[in-house]
């Protein structure tokens, strides 16, 4: 975790710097004096109920909107000095993943990923190699000729992630990437994001589901009513399998309100810890 450093916004270790950011829509204040930085290779969960300003904050980072006051710095791009023609080049350094995947449904999985490289003028050979590698990484190499509609939600999200990574971004922004998915697929996506992060790409994932992410030992940014409530690192519980299992059980508990399951989870964890 790095301290916000407005004196040196181009700090090499900083991928994203948000400094005293305020965003107003008319009378409503969506974000109020938000400051934080994300270092190279860091993994950050942004947690908060819907309406807390998570999506707004992400939009400020990929500069779909500008702050009312304050500053956002992404690599060499500074929100207060941004020109409209620079925006495409910012977007190539920031991979974005959405809850609704936003795939182009008039072309194949391969072309959905490839188009992001074609618009940069990469050679067909480079494109073919890179897209194949990425689809392999997300486990969809065998479905590259299919249309997105024929894939499951989880698979579509994996295509979207491959697309976001294709131009080697320094950070991946994910806005509720698991919001439309069943628990199993959500887990797969989370695992994939961890894997991407361990390969060196910073990840900022927004989610409203605190219980889902609290056991992974990652930095968590709590957002509520447009303010940063808390910015802390959670403790790790068990190994990755346990954590995901805990998530699964937590979800089940929430769904059914089943006390039995809660007890079983507690038992399981305590027996494993004592081993």
């Amino acid at each position, binding site marked *: 975790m790095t301290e916000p450093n407005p004196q040196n916004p181009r700090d090499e270790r900083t991928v994203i710097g948000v400094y005293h950011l305020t965003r107003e829509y008319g009378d409503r204040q969506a974000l109020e004096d938000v400051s934080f930085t994300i270092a190279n290779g860091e993994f950050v969960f942004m947690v908060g109920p819907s309406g807390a300003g998570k999506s707004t904050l992400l939009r400020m980072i990929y500069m779909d909107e500008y702050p009312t006051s304050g500053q956002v710095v992404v690599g060499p791009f500074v929100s207060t000095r941004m020109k409209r023609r620079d925006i495409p080049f910012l*977007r190539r350094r920031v991979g974005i993943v959405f809850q609704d995947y936003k795939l182009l449904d008039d072309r194949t999985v391969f072309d959905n990923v490839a188009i992001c490289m074609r618009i940069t003028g990469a050679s067909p050979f480079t494109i073919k190699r890179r897209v194949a590698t990425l689809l392999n990484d997300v486990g969809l190499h065998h479905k590259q000729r299919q249309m997105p509609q024929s894939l499951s939600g989880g698979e579509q999200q994996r295509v979207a992630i491959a697309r976001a990574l294709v131009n080697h971004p320094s950070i991946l922004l994910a806005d509720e990437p698991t919001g439309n998915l069943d628990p199993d697929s959500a887990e797969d996506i989370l695992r994939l994001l961890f894997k991407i992060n361990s390969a060196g790409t910073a990840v900022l994932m927004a989610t409203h589901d605190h219980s889902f992410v609290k056991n992974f030992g990652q930095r968590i940014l709590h957002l509520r009513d447009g303010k940063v409530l808390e910015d802390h690192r959670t403790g790790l519980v068990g190994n990755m399998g346990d954590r995901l299992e805990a998530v699964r059980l937590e979800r089940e508990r929430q769904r059914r309100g089943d006390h039995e399951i809660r007890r079983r989870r507690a038992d399981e964890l305590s027996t494993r810890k004592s081993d």
Partner: protein
Amino acid sequence: MLRRIFYIIDEALLTVKRHKGLTSISIVIMSLSLLMLAVFLLATDNVLKLVSEAQNEMKMYVYLDDGVSQTQAQDLYQKILQEPEVSEVQFVSKDEAMEDFRQQLGDDSDLLGTLRANPLPNSFLVTPREESKTRDAMVSLAERIQPLPGVEEVRYGREFLDRFAKVLKALYFVNGVVGFIVILSALFIISNAVRLTVISRRKTIEILKLVGATNGYILAPFIIEGAFQAGVAAVLSLGLLWCVAVLSRNVIPDITFFSTQKAAVYLLTCVVIGSIGSGLALRRMLKMR
């Protein structure tokens, strides 16, 4: 650069292939509105042809006094030929005039037998230059020839020319107004047809922006697509127009179709209108960040 062109063509073709229904609807709408334009242009073309044919017929007869001698006539011939508007002067003798008259009368030429002497005068048939075949030029030429010695009368159908000029003026005015309306509505319909395509692909544009495509990359395939649609629509409208022209030969036998050159200019114009139309329809979309 080459890669960029390939990308643009690929994208345009992909859209046409994937959205066949929308593309065909848009082409049909365009071709009908272009047909309107084409019918108007063909009508104008034919009317102008008629007008120029009528103007080609324009001639002037200079009738000579009876007592004019050979030398005087020779003198007059030279003077008329020197007028700047005149291209050709031909002497028509009394006898030749009578012979023409007899031929015109045909079966009724017997009537001329009752005449004791030839009442027709000697005359000059004056053909004006191409650019002087207008009412005003004819009037001023006649005013200069009339006072020459030995000239009895100058005739060039002044009453007809006056009426012709008035009709032409009205015709040009109506043509201009109708043309303006037709072109405007064609542009309107085409840019709306393109907007239909653009709206249906709003999501695509949004996504391309999110993954970092520059406006050029987003705009270009649409422009190519618009040009393509307008081109196909123009060919269709020409085909329809040809059918209309063939059918209306029953009513107007003299109707002629566009020359190859004019058809080519028409096609090119439609393609340009199509690209401009798509550019206009897209402008608003590109203002999004």
